């Protein structure tokens, strides 16, 4: 039997992040994804997290039960679409897409089977919105943010200066990888990778 696959370890260079801005080159990656809007922690947001994890665990365990390649369920990630300065947009109007990185060998039929199982279990209708999606971010500026989510703008400011100093500009949605579980870890110790796709300045 092959060893358990851990995508974060396999693509280590994309995830090892210092507490200062750095450039990383990412490859296209497949995710389980669900999008929505509303305040983080709100009803819609929580229902989407539930649906996403439900799909992730069910797909993994169904494969494992069938004796197929086992893998670690990756951490929660999120893309945020503020359309400008996040501080200017009320939280309940924030748009986001929640993601869990998933091995390439997971196919749509695996997801469809999991969704069917979960709906039979009486899980919320959000289940049907979970999709498999490949995201290609290319070159990104990345930095580890330690502390409450409310203070991310400080980290982003450092990343922006770094981008400018290197003749780059942000070119894609704000992407976060949640290394800590906010339900367990106090805000000042939360670790989050902030990833911002970048291109050469015009």
């Amino acid at each position, binding site marked *: 039997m092959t060893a358990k696959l851990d995508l974060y370890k396999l693509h280590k260079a994309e995830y090892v992040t210092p507490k200062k801005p750095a450039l990383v080159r990412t490859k296209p990656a497949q995710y389980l994804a669900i999008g929505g809007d509303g305040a983080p922690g709100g009803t819609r947001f929580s229902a989407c997290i539930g649906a996403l994890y*439900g799909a992730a665990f069910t797909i993994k*365990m169904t494969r494992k039960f069938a004796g197929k390649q086992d893998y670690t369920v990756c951490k929660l990630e999120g893309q945020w679409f503020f359309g400008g300065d996040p501080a200017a947009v009320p939280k309940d109007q924030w748009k986001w897409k929640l993601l869990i990185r998933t091995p390439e060998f997971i196919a749509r039929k695996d997801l469809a089977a999991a969704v069917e199982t979960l709906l039979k*279990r009486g899980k919320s209708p959000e289940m049907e919105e979970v999709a498999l999606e490949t995201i290609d971010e290319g070159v990104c500026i990345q930095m580890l943010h330690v502390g409450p989510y409310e203070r991310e703008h400080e980290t982003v400011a450092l990343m922006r200066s770094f981008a400018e100093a290197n003749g780059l500009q942000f070119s894609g949605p704000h992407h976060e990888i949640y290394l800590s579980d906010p339900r367990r870890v106090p805000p000042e110790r939360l670790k989050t990778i902030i990833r911002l796709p970048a291109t050469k300045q015009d």
Partner: protein
Amino acid sequence: MRICKMHVSAKQTTLRFYKERLLRVLVHIQEHLDEPLALEELARLACLAPYHFHHVFTGMLGESLASHVRRLRLERAATRLKFTEMPVVEIAFEAAYETHEAFSRAFRKAFGLSPAQFRKRNRTSARIQIPSGIHYQHRKRPGSFRAAQPEDKSMNVTIKHLKPMRVAFMRHVGPYNEVGKTWECFTMYLGKEGLLGSGSQFIGISHDDPAVTPPDKTRYDACVTVDGMFRAAGEIGVQVIPGGDYAMLTHFGPYEKLSESYAKLLGQWLPRSGRRLRATPCFEIYLNTPENTAPEDLLTDIHAPLEAK
């Protein structure tokens, strides 16, 4: 002011309450050093549930029941060497060692001398230092002991009132360091059935003292919270973890050291808390998983059930 005073005295009463119960056990052990000691019987003497007893004992005495008995037997052997002419082999046998070599090894470790050397020296103490102050005494009952103080004064215990939790569980019978296999099998089954989600709580209940119960017989329940729709099937049962007050302590680090935190909570914090244990098992909630977490970063919330105030 008055409330404050009452509070202190309630705490002292609780400490006395637990000390008296353990003292009964200590007297019994000294009077029956040559008999196999049944955990159930000792727990009964202490009026504690067997699944609580060993944690309270270890925490309050600063040594496990098994090492306590071993130490007393060694102290008795030292006393015999010192004051009698009994042959070493006979003393070794009486101290429950099957061979002279095993006895000599244990003796040297405890006293720094071989049994023969010890016998020749007059002034060596036949006691092994221990904070509880309980030692082997020839034909004398122990009258009191010093309860171990919490090393960590800031032990961060919170009291929570919990609702009953309905859980699916799979029983593991075997060594505690192999529960991972049961978890693998259990979560695989639940996962493929669509029963794992972001709200699932992963809970463990240990029913035995691994120092007393043989490793192939220790029992553990791997539990995951489920909704009312779930029905027991095959190897997977359903139980309800009772609601009520619980004292909670977060254990930081590897699972192998969980029992140290249990002993601190039940044997050091509890007797000084003014609260009493309820006769339902403790449980632990796993906040992360060894699957993607280094052992030193594992977090486990230990819950000890308390009687209502």
